[in-house]
């Protein structure tokens, strides 16, 4: 057994040495090598092709995975940037609103208090805003509430840390006003449908035309004179009725108001010039 084992080793070694000797002496088993190569070359190329195909498939797969993960990362980045952009835009808009509000406050000849809207009631029965200023801040009932565009309403209820502001278009709201151009007096009332109308006394309409600006009259002690209330959009002629009504587009879009000024002081001065058309 052991002899056979070493005989095999010897044979193999001799065979190898024979091959080497023949080659180094100038001759050579090139023919045999050629024959072996002829047999194995197709298999080699088949293996190489299969390997290349597998590598290509693998690279395609990894590329796809990479693209997919990149795509997901880019989508996430896009979402994040979009949110950031919205936040920046929001902050920018808030900044503009606050700047305008502060500018108005600085121009005002009477004491004011800034407030932030923390609640809204827009049902047909009542239309109001809740402001984060209350009794502890010195807010009192009936205080006018304004924004750079004009009158928002008046404080209807005061609580310890918040106040309810009755909006101009509340069905129970009434504000003494005049047509700025003609000084025609009347009352601005809220309508159950959400609109605002200017009820004026003169039967002939007193020359009020669409586009006229209605401002607070300053009669009484409630509202300072000259706060923009709205613009006339149409005249409603009720035929034989004693009064004519002017339909108003409110100066303030209460649905968009987020910060307000509460007028804590009093003034008899006409403050219409402090309000610009764009607020």
């Amino acid at each position, binding site marked *: 057994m052991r002899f056979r*084992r070493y005989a095999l080793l010897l044979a*193999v*070694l001799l065979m*190898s040495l024979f*091959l080497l000797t023949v080659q180094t002496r100038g001759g050579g088993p090139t023919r045999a090598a050629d024959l*072996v*190569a002829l047999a*194995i070359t197709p298999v080699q190329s088949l*293996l190489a092709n299969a390997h290349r195909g597998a590598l290509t498939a693998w690279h395609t797969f990894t590329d796809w995975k990479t693209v997919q993960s990149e795509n997901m990362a880019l989508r996430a980045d896009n979402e994040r940037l979009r949110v950031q952009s919205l936040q920046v835009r929001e902050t920018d808009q808030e900044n503009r609103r606050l700047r305008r509000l502060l500018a108005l406050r600085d121009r005002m000849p009477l004491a004011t208090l800034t407030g932030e809207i923390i609640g809204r009631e827009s049902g047909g029965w009542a239309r109001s805003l809740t402001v984060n200023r209350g009794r502890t801040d010195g807010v009192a009932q009936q205080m006018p509430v304004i924004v750079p565009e004009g009158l928002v309403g008046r404080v209807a209820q005061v609580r310890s840390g918040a106040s309810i502001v009755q909006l101009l278009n509340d069905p129970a709201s009434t504000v003494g006003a005049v047509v700025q151009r003609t000084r025609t007096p009347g009352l601005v009332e809220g309508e159950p449908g959400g609109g605002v109308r200017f009820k004026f006394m003169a039967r002939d309409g007193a020359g009020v035309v669409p586009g006229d600006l209605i401002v607070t009259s300053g009669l009484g002690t409630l509202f300072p004179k000259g706060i923009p209330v709205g613009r006339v959009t149409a005249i409603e002629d009720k035929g034989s009725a004693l009064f004519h009504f002017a339909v108003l587009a409110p100066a303030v879009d209460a649905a968009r108001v987020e910060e307000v000024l509460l007028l804590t002081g009093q003034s008899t001065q006409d403050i219409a010039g402090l309000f610009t058309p764009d607020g």
Partner: protein
Amino acid sequence: MRLSLLLMVFGGSLAQSSVVPSWSVGGVTPDLPLILTAFIALRRGPEAGCLVGFAAGLLQDVTGGGLLGVQALSRALAGFAMGLLPGRLWVGHPLVQIPGLVLLTVAEGLVRFGLLRLLHFPASIGEFLAHVILPQALYNGFLGAACVLAVELAHTLRGRHTWT
């Protein structure tokens, strides 16, 4: 069984020249036919190791374009020597198999280098050892370990499958 051995040797040798080059790490490629020779020799003894080594070496000589017989001889010797170990060492454990494979690669490389030196191979042994033989021995060790783990896993899975 002989057919499977033949296919392994044939496939391993051809893969060495077609597939294995793409596994190159820093210019070092493993020697798949030598790994196969070592494992076959450990399992089947020196005769099988010698014949498998000779055949694999001869095929590599042909596909590599070098002198016919150099690798055939060195691998036949390596296979034979590896096949003698089971009677002397406890070679069933991977912690013996893998260092054995590394040492075998070094020894085979040195034998091959010696043969080539006899035929006026110009490179120096130190350079060859540092840049070719030792890195390849280490790579063979890693690949051999991976093969051992894969075989163990396959055995475990097969055992679990038949048990259920």
